[in-house]
């Protein structure tokens, strides 16, 4: 199937992504920030679909939105947010930080615009019905070792999280 009206989808989704990313930073209440983060993540999932990565899009929704952000919300629940909201939100060097990040962003954009020539204008599409299968194959063949090592990473994370959250050791 040929893509339908992709420029409009792209602009719409990127607008949502950027605006809610700004929301993550600007909101006073961390719950609002977390909800804004969910919107960014969902619109990124939409963009992954447009880039012919349906499996990544699915995992993005299940793992990121369903797992990580929920974890954030749980922790926010455990913590007294009333007090956090009354405290001043930005630090004293905010202007320096803003300028540094803007310079960084400008650098990246310049690199991409300058490097545009090496990108093909019309990339070939992947056959999308095979995407999940192919990704699975790569994970179990070429990337077998990183895949196994990632399980060790998760084990370390479990041990670490339990140790840090315990009242006494």
């Amino acid at each position: 199937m040929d893509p339908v009206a992709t420029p409009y989808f792209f602009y719409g989704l990127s607008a949502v992504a950027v605006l809610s990313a700004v929301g993550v930073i600007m909101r006073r209440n961390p719950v609002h920030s977390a909800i804004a983060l969910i919107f960014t993540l969902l619109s990124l999932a939409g963009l992954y679909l447009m880039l012919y990565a349906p499996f990544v899009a699915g995992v993005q929704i299940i793992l990121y939105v369903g797992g990580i952000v929920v974890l954030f919300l749980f922790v926010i629940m455990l913590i007294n947010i009333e007090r956090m909201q009354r405290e001043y939100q930005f630090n004293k060097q905010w202007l320096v930080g803003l300028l540094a990040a803007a310079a960084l962003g400008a650098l990246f954009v310049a690199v991409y615009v300058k490097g545009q020539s090496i990108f093909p204008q019309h990339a070939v599409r992947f056959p999308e019905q095979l995407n999940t299968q192919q990704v699975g194959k790569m994970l179990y063949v070429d990337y077998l070792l990183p895949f196994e090592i990632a399980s060790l990473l998760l084990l370390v994370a479990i041990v670490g999280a339990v140790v840090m959250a315990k009242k006494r050791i």
Partner: protein
Amino acid sequence: MIQAVDYIRVLPEIVLTLFGVAIMMVEGALPPRASRKPLGWLAFVGTLAALAATVYQAGYPGMAFFGMVRVDSFSIFFHFLIAFIAALVVLSSFEYLDAQQIRGGEYYGLILFGAVGMVLMSSAVELVLIFIALEISSISTYVLAGFRRRAPSSIESSIKYFLLGSFATAFFLYGVALIFGATGSTRIYMIAETIQGGKHSAMVFTAVALMFVGIGFKIAAAPFHVWTPDVYEGAPAPVVGLMSTAPKAAAFAVLLRIFFAAATPGWFWPVWISAALSMTLGNISALVQDNVKRLLAYSSIAHAGYLLVAFAAARDIGISAAMFYTAAYALMNVGAFAVVSHFASAGERYVTLEDYAGLGRRSPVLAATLTIFLLSLIGIPITGGFFAKFYVFSAALKSNLVWLVIIAVVNSAIAAYYYLRIIVLMYMRDAREPAPTVQNVSAPLGVALALTVAATIYLGVLPGRVLDYASRGAALLVR
């Protein structure tokens, strides 16, 4: 196809993981009030087994797991170093954990898991695998930094290390993404082929800069060093001994691979500037410290600077000098922190320079040991630090980096002042009243100290064998 030899090429990782898992399982079976010493011994046996596995592995060089891991003299060198450091840190932790009344067997498990990540960082030749290994080593050290639960400063150290560390790894990762975009691969040897094949786009330069930022945080090179003193001050002393050496050694291995094996362009001036800044800022800030852990933190920043001088030298002679320096620095720093952790006592009470006054009279052996490490950190002959500095500076001179060598030599002279200050305090001053009590050194710590002193002096008297091995690894790296 995966063959048995593939598993041999990741044998130290497998051994360390198995011992780590065993520790976690035994920890659950032990009664809550029981001593955690057996777990420590298990961890020590694990590190010895990893050393044996490394020696065995040296007979099977080559790529494994579809070109993910490469075992050669270069990675063997770092495997051996990291496993040895882990063994020393485990030995010097027994007594410390007792003194601080920390009863968590996870401590030893996390040291071994962290070592898996570091060992893998030095042998991985694929950037995503390097990233995962880097995360394993970082996450274990974040948690280890917060192990002194009764002290708020320890948790603070943990959160600072965690936030800045993840911030830095995000930069590293963006660099990986860019290099993937520019070359179409994340395998170091394929990247090398693409880059040698021709055009260096702006993307490659940006990618290298971003990866340098990420690794720069891990090795505490200026201007990415601001977290170091705080984190080292709050974290448990033996853990500082670990995290100021082993993850740094692994990160330097990664940096060497990215710069030389992948032959990436455009890093010379950033490294030059970072080396000069690290040496100068580290040494000047160390002059005014009155906390030993902060002082050693700034000293470690300065040493990262000397090491980067070897990077700028950029020939295989520079690589082998960097490898030798990493080994010498790691040994003397682990040793120094082992002494600090012994002397700190319960609650890390005695960590200011004042507390060290008169130590030479009250505890001559301990003071002499610390003196050897400090002399080695200065770079006095017959200690490892001397040849380390000598090789680095001569490599830099051969590459015509005269200005950088001048900066480094001036800095070494400045550094001598604050190291000598500690020695003078220990031997020439009377202890303050009431004098800090010094416990007897326990047997495991004694063994660890003896080993580090022996190794430091060995590197200072007979550096030939280690340097030869390093040059063989360096030659393989450049190809």
